């Protein structure tokens, strides 16, 4: 499909509807789709399941959605960065699914790759294996983990071309390429949009077939913190 280049994050974020499962890229603030997250906090969709490594920090990023009571469930590997997550969870107001980071990443890749589930040695014999199926393969015990998929993915890339191909910048790549593969609708927030042919065909990390729409980033992470471009 053709990618839509939309410079209205508030309009584009309405793709997220109440009850949806939403993947959100980024490792902390690095590679996080800050503009789209900000738009999501201004949008009225609720009862969301968020698949993201963490739920922001207290009152920041996805942490605002939590405070707004819009989250039904969070799936990730490290919620410790936001103390309120434990509080909401203990009060029974938030479901949590905690996965080892490698299992989390692999499950998202599997979701994008048409793999229903996979066997990993990670977490075998630990509390995170409770209630999960195991299987012996060639003399070793593995744990079955199911694929993760989403209705919408919010990702951040460095540059996009007008076809929707994406390249990433340094460690801001992290979960973004795999999340871009695992959702029905993918919105990519990018710092720069270039003409077709300007990105090296060998360097494109997310081919355009994964991307539905592009928006230019308004909020960017600098050495001094998150700033607004204007």
């Amino acid at each position, binding site marked *: *499909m*053709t990618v839509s280049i939309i410079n209205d994050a508030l309009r584009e974020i309405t793709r997220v509807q109440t009850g949806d499962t939403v993947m959100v890229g980024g490792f902390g603030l690095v590679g996080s789709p800050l503009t789209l997250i900000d738009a999501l906090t201004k949008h009225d969709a609720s009862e969301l399941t968020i698949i993201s490594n963490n739920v922001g920090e207290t009152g920041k990023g996805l942490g605002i959605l939590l405070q707004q009571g819009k989250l039904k469930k969070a799936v990730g590997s490290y919620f410790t960065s936001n103390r309120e997550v434990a509080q909401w969870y203990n009060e029974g107001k938030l479901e949590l699914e905690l996965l080892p980071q490698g299992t989390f990443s692999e499950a998202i*890749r599997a*979701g*994008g*790759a*048409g*793999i229903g589930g996979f066997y990993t040695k990670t977490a075998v014999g630990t509390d995170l294996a409770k209630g999960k199926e195991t299987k012996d393969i060639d003399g070793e015990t593995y744990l079955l983990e199911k694929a993760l998929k989403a209705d919408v993915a919010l990702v951040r890339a460095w540059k996009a*071309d007008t*076809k929707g*191909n994406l390249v990433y910048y340094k460690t801001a790549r992290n979960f973004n390429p795999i999340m871009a*593969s*695992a959702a029905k609708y993918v919105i990519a927030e990018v710092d720069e949009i270039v003409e*077709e*042919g300007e*990105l090296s*065909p*060998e360097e*494109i990390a997310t*081919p*355009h*077939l*994964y991307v539905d729409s592009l928006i230019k980033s308004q909020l960017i992470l600098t050495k001094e913190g998150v700033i607004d471009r204007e």
Partner: protein
Amino acid sequence: MSKKEMIAKKAAEELAPHSIINLGIGIPTLVANYLDKDKYYLHTENGLLGVTSVEEEDIDPLLVNAGKLPVGEAVGASYFHSADSFAMIRGGHVDTAILGALQVDSNGHVANWAIPGKDIIGVGGAMDLLVGAKQIIITTNHVSKDGSPKLVDECSYPITSNRRADIIITDMATFKWKNDGYELTELIDGTSLKDVEENTTLSYRVSEKLLQKESK
């Protein structure tokens, strides 16, 4: 225009603009000739999104399609390894796969990878494409070389997938799966409903539109 070219042209007409297409070997490869290269994005499972045709003098021996034929690289193309390429296919990111077939049956099952009695030693990407693409178009001659139907009630050849073909385009007619079975939606010029009937053991109904047209 040869029969094969006619089938390919019909298949091209079924494609949505700006969709991602994977073309099998044989007739499907010809479909590219009828597509505006700026509006369709061709994927080949050996690792390229953005396949174009190539002039003889520009052939690069390290740039081929899944049929191992030389191809060109579109503007905005990208390369990836085989596991990533099949992740695209199996994960439902290819809009349409156009494939050849030995047989297609009333259940929509396609047989296109093995012949009973012959050695079953090759499958390639056929099973992945059939299971993964959002839409499957089969392009094939209506009958085999010995004149026997290729559109049959039940495949006698090993099937390639449980997944059904959405559209079948032959040198006699076009069939589309609707609700619970195939509907004959179009006849190639010079072919009658009776011709199709005599050469087809696959169950189908004739579309209302075609019935009205034929009864005129």
